[in-house]
């Protein structure tokens, strides 16, 4: 079990406006020139979680993304294939490494481990499991963990490359949480299940926990699937979905929303290719 000390989110859904550059400029006018929108989105989300608080320099930074910085690849593609130009150095650097993590670390003066990880499904769940493992083993004392995904136009193309239906509403977001081994001052605990589950296992798991524990589902969970999992149980659902469209790291938005607005406990259930993963969040008394 690990403790959540801070959370922060920036999110929008398809059709809404989010001027990331303008917002970030009000916070750090100097850190604009070499950063692109994806990096600024990462910075903005992390700032919502941390603000001007000075973190321990050894705090690790784990940044997850389902798609990565797609926009920089589009620019590099255009430079090479359309404009017949070599890559612009800034775009090249931003594509080659975990540059977003570098700028987040630089802004918050962090010198610990700095990871940029990705996965086709469950990217937030697996990154949280990685952080939980490192914290429980004592390899890290504190982890600033974020998930960043940027909405790419045209949406029709992006939906197909994400493997979701044309009817789904896309979104984007930068959702961060400060995780620690330290109980004092924590907002919540997080317990990431270490193993994947099949449908019958997730149903059994849900039936085994406190009936007062609320439940939320990832975007890939269909309503028939949800009905099958709940199986007639009268369990309160935490509906975070209306505020955000689909993006791979929306799990973190759901958890952050519950920590900010919810009460009691939440079981978050997500699915990818018929496998399920669950995360339990328990809010702690706030003084």
């Amino acid at each position, binding site marked *: 079990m690990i403790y959540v000390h801070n959370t922060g989110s920036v999110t929008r859904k398809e059709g809404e406006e989010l001027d990331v550059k303008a917002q970030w400029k009000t916070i750090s006018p100097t850190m604009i020139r070499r950063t692109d929108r994806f990096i600024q989105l990462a910075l903005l989300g992390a700032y919502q979680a941390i603000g001007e608080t000075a973190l321990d320099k050894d705090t690790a930074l784990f940044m997850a993304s389902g798609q990565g910085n797609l926009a920089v690849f589009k620019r590099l593609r255009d430079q090479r294939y359309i404009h017949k130009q070599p890559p612009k150095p800034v775009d090249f650097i931003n594509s080659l490494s975990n540059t977003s993590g570098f700028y987040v670390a630089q802004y918050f003066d962090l010198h610990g481990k700095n990871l940029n990880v990705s996965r*086709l499904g469950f990217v937030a769940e697996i990154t949280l499991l*990685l952080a939980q493992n490192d914290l429980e083993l004592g390899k890290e004392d504190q982890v600033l963990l974020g998930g960043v995904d940027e909405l790419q136009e045209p949406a029709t193309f992006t939906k*197909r490359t994400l493997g979701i239906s044309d009817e789904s509403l896309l979104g984007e977001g930068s959702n961060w949480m400060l995780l620690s081994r330290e109980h004092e001052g924590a907002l919540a605990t997080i317990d990431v299940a270490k193993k994947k589950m099949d449908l019958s296992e997730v149903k059994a798991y849900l039936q085994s926990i406190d009936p007062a524990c609320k439940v939320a589902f990832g975007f890939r969970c269909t309503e028939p699937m949800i009905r099958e999992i709940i199986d007639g149980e009268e369990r309160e659902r935490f509906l975070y979905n209306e505020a955000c469209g689909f993006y791979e790291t929306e799990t973190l938005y759901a958890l952050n929303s519950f920590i900010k607005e919810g009460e009691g406990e939440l079981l978050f259930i997500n699915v990818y290719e018929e*496998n399920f993963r669950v995360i339990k969040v328990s809010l702690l008394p706030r003084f």
Partner: protein
Amino acid sequence: MITILGGEILSALGEKEQRLKHLFEGSYKTVEKSMNLMGEELSFPYYSIDEGERNSALSIPLHYLEDAVQKAIDKCALTSEELSRCGLFVGSASNDLSLSLPLGKNYDNTQLNKVACERIGNGYYADHLTKHFGLHDFSLTYNTACTSSANALLDAASLLEGGIIDYALVIGFEMFAPISFEGFAAMQLLSPGKLVPFDRDRTGIVLGEAISALFLSRDDVVSSPWHFLGGVSSCETHSVTGANPNGEGISQVIKTALERTNITPDQICGVKAHGTASALNDLAEINGMKRVFSTSPDFFSLKPYIGHTLGSCGSSELLLMMECIDAGFLPGTPNFKNRDIELEWTPLIEKKSCTEGHFLLNYFGFGGNNTSLVIEKVSS
């Protein structure tokens, strides 16, 4: 205790017998690759897996990955049941290239149908390999520039230690990528000639491609004379393109890696340096080592053999080093001729007898990534 079981590498050095011969003799092979940069025809050496016959510009070379993993499975004699307990950790600086194909096809946004059923993303390769080989569900893909697969190794060890998996497959993966090749050229970081780490006349990096597949486990599951003792990854925010030349960040990561693994500098028998042959990186690495070691340790760079394989170098250079030591030697650093008076320290020029001991491996990259690993080989 984390055990290193071994693996396979596809690189410019060829099959094992051939690559050991190269490493023993200090020889290597490069091809010339040309590009048009702002109207100017340029040519640079390159370390190619198959001597440049393939155009992998916009293709996903899955069969190379499958080949490397299958050979590693065969070497380690792992069963299907054991593979089902094996997590996957892929490190690549260019994993976003999985996007190049659909993005390239779709460059004018008019060819949507061609990508209608293609699921893409940075985790594409890991997803494919997990299904193809029936691996455990835990997989992650790391993009931390030149430390990608070194960081993948660190996390693989952590997950093994936590008991979440019993085996780990770490893959370092970097194939020829035109955007990367041209990007380094545009930044004037490519050497027009030989790759000469730590030499007074070093002129920059020479890129290469490599796919390595390396299995780890725990000693309560499988024993091995090779142990992964641990390491440290840190972020140095001095510059997005390199470590501080004064060596401050590099010394910190080496010191902490040694402290965490309870190894003293004088116990280190050999250092696999990052050794890129770029002026400032080599200076930073030597200055970093000088802050930790009172006298120069035996150190060498493997990049003159396989090139700078970017995100692949973590696991690829570890495997090459293990193969050398298993064969009884630390490799020399080819091409080195002239001592740089600013660096003072010089790498091993000739191979040196070595069969066991403690070893340090350094990896540094864009994005402020510094990683040092410590491993040991004990008598069988």
